[in-house]
């Protein structure tokens, strides 16, 4: 997952925008939904600020879509409350919630033109005709669809259709726009392009967006904050940078950072650092300070991009490079650590001074990049 390392800089800017929030747009308290014995969403709680771009990220079955559907009103929660602005909408029908929704399948009305599709929510709100024409025109222009107004949805490409769907969801300026994998049906190139467009429009218009995806990269590119979900639980709800650098659970470290996990035991603490004696290799790994008792069995998580290759015996462990793959700007290496039968340690280092197969290398890491998880907190 080299992309994540590359993506990090843009994450910084995305994280910074969350500071410019004004007031609460939506809050969810202890939302729960079960289907028979299966808990789809378990006590999900979160507050989303106005102007924020929040993504629910998780694999299928993680509860992300169910949560979105409950917010939209298409699915009734067993318990919990959903508040939009100051209004409790938990038991309201979808049409009374005044939210926007962008579906993965576009769901444009086939019997209406692009213009009529985008005008539809405005006509429902009794907006005068002149005003409708003006706002539809403006919105289509923002999405780069001027001149397409008279066409039928079937005459447009998938990307264009999804742009129309986006226009239709934002033309009436709902306080929150929900998007359910809106780019899931598009090819990679178009997806990348539309991600940028969605983000730009969201920032320009100050929209509050809740976005559902299973694609980590997409989540990182778009979001101010990401809720990583698994088995109906929100594992962590944080800025991309926090999720990436300070994962709270091994799952998050693995899911977003594809981290290496090194089992070990806490040896001692200094003021700023925690020292971990690694199982197998017996090396001493320095991590940033964690509040864990000495002797605790831990897993140390380090992302492949945050490990460095150094001279043998200079790092916290030494090993032999078994595979080294050149992938453009990076070399991905798999290192067999001396002692023990741990899985290959995955490394991503700049291509220029990349290790070669068979080379003996030491492995080092910045203590700031090492996250420790007690072993019983299993992921």
């Amino acid at each position, binding site marked *: 997952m080299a992309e994540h390392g590359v993506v990090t800089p843009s994450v910084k800017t995305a994280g910074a925008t969350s500071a410019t929030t004004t007031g609460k747009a939506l809050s969810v308290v202890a939302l729960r939904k079960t289907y028979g014995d299966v808990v789809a969403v378990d006590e999900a709680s979160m507050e989303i600020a106005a102007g924020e771009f929040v993504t629910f990220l998780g694999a299928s079955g993680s509860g992300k879509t169910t949560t979105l559907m409950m917010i939209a*009103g*298409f699915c009734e929660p067993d318990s919990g409350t959903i508040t939009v602005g100051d209004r409790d909408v938990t038991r309201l029908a979808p049409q009374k919630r005044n939210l926007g*929704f962008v579906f993965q399948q576009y*769901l444009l009305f086939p019997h209406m033109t692009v213009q009529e599709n985008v005008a539809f929510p405005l006509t*429902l709100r009794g907006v005068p005709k002149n005003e409708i024409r003006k706002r539809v025109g403006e919105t289509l222009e923002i999405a780069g669809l001027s001149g397409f*107004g*008279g066409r039928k949805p079937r005459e447009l490409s998938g990307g264009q259709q999804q742009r129309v769907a986006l226009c239709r969801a934002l033309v*009436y300026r709902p306080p929150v726009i929900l998007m359910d994998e809106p780019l899931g049906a598009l090819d990679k190139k178009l997806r990348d392009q539309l991600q940028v467009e969605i983000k730009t429009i969201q920032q320009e218009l100050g929209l509050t967006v809740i976005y559902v995806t299973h694609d980590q990269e997409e989540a990182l590119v778009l979001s101010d904050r990401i809720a990583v979900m698994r088995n109906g639980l929100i594992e962590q709800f944080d800025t991309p940078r926090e999720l990436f650098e300070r994962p709270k659970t091994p799952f998050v470290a693995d899911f977003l950072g594809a981290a290496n996990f090194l089992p070990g035991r806490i040896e001692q603490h200094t003021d700023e650092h925690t020292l971990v004696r690694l199982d197998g290799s017996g090396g001493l790994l320095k991590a940033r300070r964690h509040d864990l008792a000495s002797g605790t069995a831990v897993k140390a998580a380090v992302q492949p991009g945050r490990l460095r290759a150094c001279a043998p015996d200079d790092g916290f462990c030494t090993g032999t490079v078994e595979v080294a793959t050149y992938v453009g700007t990076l070399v991905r290496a798999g290192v067999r650590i001396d002692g023990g039968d741990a899985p290959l340690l995955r490394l991503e280092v700049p291509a220029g001074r990349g290790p070669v197969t068979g080379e003996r290398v030491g492995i080092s890491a910045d203590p700031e990049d090492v996250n420790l998880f007690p072993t019983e907190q299993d992921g």
Partner: protein
Amino acid sequence: MAATLTATAPAPPRKLLASRRTRVGILYALPVVVYLLVLFVYPIFSTLFLSLKDTDGALTLHWYADALTGVNLSVLFTTLRISAETAVLSLVFGFVLANAISRLKPLWAGVAMLIVVVPHFISALVRTYGWIIMLGDKGLVNETMAWAPGAPFQLLYNELGVVIGTTSMMLPYTVLLLYGVMRGVDRRLLAAAASMGAGRVTIFRRIYLPLVAPGLASAGLLSFILSLGYYITPALMGGPNQTMIATLINQQVMKENQWNGAAAQGVILLLITFAGLLLVKLVTSLGASRRKRSAS
């Protein structure tokens, strides 16, 4: 020269293949062509000639003039009126039924469709007598409605009786047609409309109805056309004032041995059917072009 040779070389076998395919195609089409010629084209044209032939063999429009005057004309109007009423009623009931069925789970929808369609396998005569028993003065309907003022109601041998009968005969067609169209409507579109704030009535009027409109047009037209030529039910469930054109044709052929007049009425019926088809085509294309104009 060589270039043109190589360029044209692959062409002949393809041409040969094409012509062979054409010949085989003609062979396959032959039964259908013969079938249509014998059972469709010939009867229509012979009816047409019959309707234009005077008793002495000369060409005449006399039979058409006859069919479009006096009692015959009023029978024609009755036929059109009853057919229109039947079309509207079977559309309304068909819509309600098909709409309900399309919301059922597939298994139950299958059962419901069976219930709608199976009566159609029973002879129309038997079903018509069934209705006569049900709707008679001492029938099930009047017995259960005995408490109501004005009972027993006259439900037979009038236009009401005919329309009840024909509507029930047409219902399977409209339900089948509308069900197919409704199944094709993406329900998520309705959810999408709801997400934008549309209420049930608006969703129905502005999303659902336009999407099933083509089905409504064809179902309505079908039941109208089928009713035009319907014979048994109007003959048995109607009174003298509900004589429909099919009954008239039957009378002319069976009782008066008047084939030419019957043929003329048959041709008129055919022309009305074509006119109905044309009308629906016109209305739908007009609607489409108007929508296009309003959009641009």
